[in-house]
């Protein structure tokens, strides 16, 4: 379960995320819908630590992600799959293959 609690984020004087909270349950598909510039990508990037949050908490199964140090976040991210808007590294792969890359890499190292 992933819990987002009262997160806020500003870029300079512009507040893009203001006191947002929600819970993502295991085994369910969730959608975040909003108009362009409303902060969907910013929320996702904050959830994986690519953007820092100004206040609030991001909790993965009782682990407070935003309180981990950079090295711990780096290790934690190995369990997360994320696909970027532009395809980023693997534009030849399908969405499923891209999302499973981290998991496959981890299984191979084990």
């Amino acid at each position, binding site marked *: 379960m992933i819990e987002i609690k009262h997160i806020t984020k500003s870029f300079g004087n512009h507040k893009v995320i203001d006191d947002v909270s929600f819970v993502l349950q295991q085994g369910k598909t969730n959608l975040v819908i909003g108009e362009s510039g409303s902060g969907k990508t910013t929320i996702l*990037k904050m959830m*994986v*630590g*690519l953007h820092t949050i100004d206040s609030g908490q991001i909790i993965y199964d009782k682990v407070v992600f935003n309180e981990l140090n*950079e090295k711990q976040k*780096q*290790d934690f*991210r*190995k369990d*997360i*799959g*994320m696909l*970027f*808007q*532009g395809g*980023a*590294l*693997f534009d030849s792969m399908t969405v499923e293959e891209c999302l499973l*890359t*981290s998991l496959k*890499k981890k299984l191979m190292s084990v």
Partner: protein
Amino acid sequence: MSVNSPNFSINFVFLGFFTKRKLITFATIIMGFLFHIGRYFLLMKRAFSKPEKLKVYVKQFFFEVDNIGVSSLGIITIISFFMGGVITIQAAFSLTSPLIPLYAVGFTTRESMILEFSPTIISLILAGKVGGNIASEIGSMRISEQIDALEIMGVNSASFLILPKVLAGIFINPFLIAISMFLGIFGGYVMGVATGACTSYEYIFGIQAFFVPWKLTYSFLKTAIFGGIITSVAAYHGYYTQGGALEVGRSSTKAVVYSSILILVANFLITQIFFVQ
């Protein structure tokens, strides 16, 4: 202090010049400067952290040596050869006094090439070629979210992208400059003899006269430092690119401008340390 004293009027003018608005602008510039210095060193700290897979980094290092060094040989050859030739001709036609021996032409060319032209001018040219290339490469990766994708995979993107480039720059730059020194002195010989500015014997005698080996140490040391400046400053500007294609271009320009300024400042400081006892 009385109102009529000269010190009073100087202080008055001083305070008048620094109005509140100008002070705020000045403080903003200083804060921006300190912000970039701090962020640069934090990025370098991340870049120089222990690599996870050394084999990958070694492979990447040799790729960068080829990319930064070998691909720059053409421009270095042409510039150095003609630069040496021009120095020789200018020296020959400037040193017209009968009291100055003609071997001074070779001596002047060697000293100019070894001390300044090869290390500094070639590094400035490389700042344009290599620095712009690195900033646009990393900047493009940033705006297309490739760096974010690396981070998601648990890869230290700063170390993976920047460390091999900086080490390759520090390693290969002295070799490029050594080639430039040789070609410059050789260009001087060819041009000097071909134009009749000096004889072959005088030039060769001149380039051997009063040779002090530690000047080469000084040149190679500062060249290695310039290699580090070129690659790290360019990588910094590329890594923190925000926006689109236009901003990638701006990052490349900033990388060239700031690395050129830093090269000149570093050149002054190193020269001061080496030459002033």
